[in-house]
Structure formats: C-alpha cells, structure tokens
C-alpha cells in the first residue's frame, strides 16, 4: 500500500497562562492511501488536536506532517486553505451547517469556493444529497431537520468534491445508537466506494470497529496501534 499521510515526532504544547499543557507528545504515524483509521481516546487524549493538525487547522509546536507531497506543517494559511479546498472533507460532531442556508446550499457552498459554476454545483450537490437519502429535503433549512438528517447533509458536504481524505470528528457524538450505525455505514460506505482515505476521531469503541486500524491515544501519546480483524464494512444506502 502507498503511504499518504506521515506524521513525524509531532508535538503540540498549549499555553494556559503560565502553565504548559502538552496536548500531543512525539506522535509518529503513517497512514496509507484508502485506509480507514480510527483515533480512539478519552476526552483530553489529544485525538481531536491530532485531527485538526492533519487538516491544517492547527500548527504543531514541533514535528512534521506530510500529506502526499505537501509539507502541511510548513505551509502558510493561504496554501493550507487551498490544499484543504481540493483534498479534504470534514464531518463535525455538531454538524456545523450554516443555519440560513438550505441543505442544497450548504452542500454546494464548498464548491462555490472552488469556482464551480452554479448549475454544475447544484447538480453535484443534488446527487450527493440523494445518495445520502435526502433527495426530498433539498430545500429544507438545518433547523427543519433531525440530527441524523443534519449529519447526512454534513456528510454530503464533506464528500461532494470527492476529496482524497475525509476527516470525521466524533461524527456520531450527538446521535442515538440506531442513527449512529446508519451514519457510520454511510460514511464508510461512501469512502469505500470512492477509494478515499478516512480518519475518524471517536471515544466510542463501537465506532472504532469501522477502521482498518485503531490508534489508541492517551494523554497525548500513542498507546498502541491495533489492526482491526473484524472490520465492519459500511455500505452507502
């Protein structure tokens, strides 16, 4: 398998007043193309910080992040934004949909920044929303949808540009068990279909079974990396 993401001696220190908090300590990890990785840990383990750093939302204090040929840790905000625009999709725990925009508009928003003309991006967004099972709710506002439906919109938004990597930060944290399974099936199924690399952050061991590998984080360090023998393969729809 081909290596896609390489983390080398990654360290992140936050300053809280006079106190130093070590969020990540000497993380070294290699993630392959089309691999599904679960970052598992309790709150404060540094899993979200790690994800944000890979997405270029945070800068490491020390160490290297290399995605493909891009040295993310060295790039300025403008270049990282450009990189993110083309290569990265995001699914958040709290959906982060824009409340004033309809489902369709939320999904096509990212395409807007890629200068894709309106007719084309509406078509793409419509197809994606149909794929996540919201074909009949294109023009609903987030406030008019359930949590599961909102997360589906968010998934559609993450996948619509067919990015190489999709980051999911506690994607099911706000959802009930039944919906959780549906959503996880949807995410992994779609990533599988389009040969995408998926990185999921969770504290839930039931979620972690969706990954090829599970990375256990504790107090900012990798405790162990486990090959998952009983992977659950999701299916879109």
């Amino acid at each position, binding site marked *: 398998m081909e290596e896609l993401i390489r983390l080398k001696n990654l360290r992140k220190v936050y300053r809280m007043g006079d106190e130093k908090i070590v969020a990540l300590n000497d993380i070294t990890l290699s993630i392959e193309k089309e691999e599904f990785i679960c970052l598992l840990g309790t709150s404060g383990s540094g899993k979200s910080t790690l994800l944000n750093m890979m997405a270029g939302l945070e800068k490491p204090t020390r160490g290297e992040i290399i995605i493909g040929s891009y040295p993310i840790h060295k790039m300025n905000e*403008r270049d990282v*934004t450009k990189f*993110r625009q083309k290569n990265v999709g995001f699914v958040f725990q709290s959906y*982060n*949909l824009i409340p004033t925009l309809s489902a369709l508009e939320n999904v096509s928003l990212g395409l807007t*920044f890629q*200068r894709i003309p309106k007719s084309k991006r509406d078509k793409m967004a419509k197809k994606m929303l149909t794929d996540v099972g919201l074909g009949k709710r294109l023009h609903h506002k987030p406030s008019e949808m359930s949590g599961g439906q909102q997360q589906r919109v968010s998934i559609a938004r993450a996948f619509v540009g067919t990015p190489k990597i999709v980051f999911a930060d506690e994607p099911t944290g706000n959802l009930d068990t039944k919906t959780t399974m549906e959503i996880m099936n949807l995410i992994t199924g779609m990533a599988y279909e389009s040969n995408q690399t998926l990185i999921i952050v969770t504290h839930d061991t039931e979620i972690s079974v969706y990954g090829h590998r599970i990375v256990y984080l504790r107090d900012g360090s990798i405790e162990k990396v486990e090959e998952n023998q009983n992977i659950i393969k999701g299916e879109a729809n």
Partner: protein
Amino acid sequence: MSSIDLFRMGIKNLWRRKLRTFLTILGVIIGASAIIVMLSLGFGLSKFFEEQIAQWGDLTIINVYKGWAEPMPGREIPDLDDKAVESFKLLQNVVAVSPILETYGAVINGRNVANAPIRGIDPASMEAFGFDIAEGRLLNNTDSLHVVFGSSMEYNFRDPKARVWREVNVNLMKDRMSLTLDPNYGWSMPGEKRPNYKEYKIKTVGILAEGDWETSYGIYMPISELQKMIKDKEKAEGQRPQSGSNRQSGYDRVNVKVNDIKNVQDVQETIKDLGHEAYSLNDQLEYTKKQAGMIQAVLGGIGAVSLLVAAIGITNTMVMSIYERTKEIGVMKVIGASLRDIRRLFLFESALIGLLGGTFGVGTSYLLSFLVNKFSMKFGEALGAYGATKISIIPIWLVFAAMAFSAFIGIVSGYFPARRAMNLSALEAIRTE
C-alpha cells in the same frame, strides 16, 4: 469564489438582517444627501455670482490701460498705441482687439434728448467682440458719422422742457438724429455762458440686441470719427491741444476679447507682464468664486460630519455581523474559503451598503434640492444671494462622485471588520456555539 457568487452571497447576507441593513443604509443616505445638498448650495451660489457678474459686462473682455507704475531704471512703461494693439492681436487665445474711446454726450431727436456714453470702437472688430445686432447692421470700415445704438437707448429719450413726464416715441432707425458732446445739452441754466458745441448729423445703421448692462446703454461709432469730435470739443471749450512731450500718445483704453473665459486669466497676466494695466470682470469673478468656494467648504464640512457618523455606523454593523457569523466564517474557512474570499465577501457587503446609501442619497438630495429651490428666495437671501432663481444645483458629476465616494466610504469602513473576519481562527470559530 467567482464574482457572481460573491455578489449573490453578499446580497443574501445583507437581506438576512433587513432592518439592520436598512438602518445602516439610512445612515449613509442621510450622510450622502447632507453632503450633496450642502455642496449643491455652494454650486448654486457660485453660479448665481457668475450670472450676476455676467450681467455687468462681457466676462471674456479684458480692459487694458496704460501702465501707471513708477518708472524704474531699465524699464519703460510702454505706450498703448497701435503697435501695442497689434501685439495684443498676436497673443494666443485673443480673438479681437480694439482701442476704445469713451466720452459722454447727447443724442438729439427734435425736442427729445438722450444722454448717453459715446464709445468709439474699431468698426472691423465689432463682430468679433460679440456684438449682436437686432436691427440694421454693425459698423464697418467705410462708416464715418454712423452709429449703432445700445438695445435700451430707445427708452432714454426725454423732452427736457416738458414739465410733466410723458412717453416719448422715437424710431431710432428712421428718425433724424444729431449728436453733440455737450455733456449738459438741454439742461442749461438761465444766464449761463456755454461753449458752442458742434452738433453732428448722424446716421443710425443698427440697434444692438439685448446684452449686458454695458452694451445696452450707450452708442457706438468708429473711433476715428470720435477722436475728431473730441478735438472739436476741446477747441470749443478753449482747451489747447496738448503739445510736446506732455502729449499723451496712444489710447486711453484697449479692449481685448478672449476666446474662452478660462483663458482670460492667462491673457490678462501676459498683458500685465508687457507693462500695461489690465482689468476684467474675471477679477471680480475669481474673488466671488473664492468666496462661494469658502461657503461651500464650510457647508460641505457640515455634511461630511454626518457621512463620518454613517461610516462609523457601517463599521459597527459589519463588526456586529462578524460576531454573529463567527461560526459561519469558521465553517467556510474549513470547507475551503480562502482568506481572500472572506475578505472580499465582507468588503463587498460594506461597499454595497455604501453604494446603496449613496444611490438613494442622490435620490433624496434631488428631492431636497427641489424643495430648496422651490423656497429658494428665503434660502437665497439667508446666504446673501438676492433674487437667485436656483440656489441648489447638483451637477451630474457630483451624482456619480457621491455614489463612488459612498461606496469607497463603505469599503474603508468595512476594511477593519473584513480583516478581523479574515484573521479569525477557523478552529476557534467552529468551536463557538
């Protein structure tokens, strides 16, 4: 993000907060129309002054007199003679030059007399000086005792012996006329001994069209004839012709006509540099223009204050909007909005507020201007412009300037908030609940 998307998104964002957007725009409307109306008063005043001065005489004519400065060693005061006239003709932007001789006399038509200034002019230059004829023709080179009447001369004839006023009907073109340089003709006191002034039979060739105060009153004739008449007059009064070095050579006054009012100043300066004295109504005009400009600056300053307040209003609105949209900005950044997109979006929104305010401000100021002009008498008098018809004038360039300026104010006001939005940390922003 493409411009059309930017446009669409910006308008949508403004529309989302209709009341706030409206109130902010209202502030700009008030600011913009305050400036426009105040400036328009200045333009109206300036125009009024110009019109008033134009009534006194032709603004493009320069009156040249013999220089009177103390003779300095190495610098002679040049004579205002034919040579000088020729040299003026060669100046750039000069269309006509004529020596002018002016004296006072009376035109006699039977029992009726009209006292008036009599002006000698180079007949060939009349047309170029812009004299308009209402009846007959202008003077030409073959004329001698021929005259052209000013437009209002008809109403100047009176019967000096009449005890009560009665209307006098004179036909300037057809009636027989004679001319005398007796300044008090017909008004003699009993027992007074008077020189024996000559009376000249004259032939009227034309009457001028209605012009300014100078041309409507008086009569025009070839300068060479008038020179002869003045010599006769001096003889009759017993004056000896001046002789020797005391004899004033050349003319008292030469008029120079310039092609355009904007070149008057230049030509006037050039003539002054030649050592002559030169005056024009332009001097007066420059002065009043300066005055009007000063009043305008004060008025504009008052208007500017309200636009400044409006600009602060825009900034406030945009800052508030960023607080509200912090999360949205974060999400947009995470899903691929570039820093430039974010900045452009906010600058566009504030520019649009400015432009809309400016546009409606122009509309409002037209309305205000209309009302001001409707009640212009009182407004005009308050500003010292008595009898002005239009005291508020909005030039078309001001309309576009005001709209562009308002949009510019919008951009300037939005600059700080836009930077702030751009520099928001995406991570902080999406964490905001």
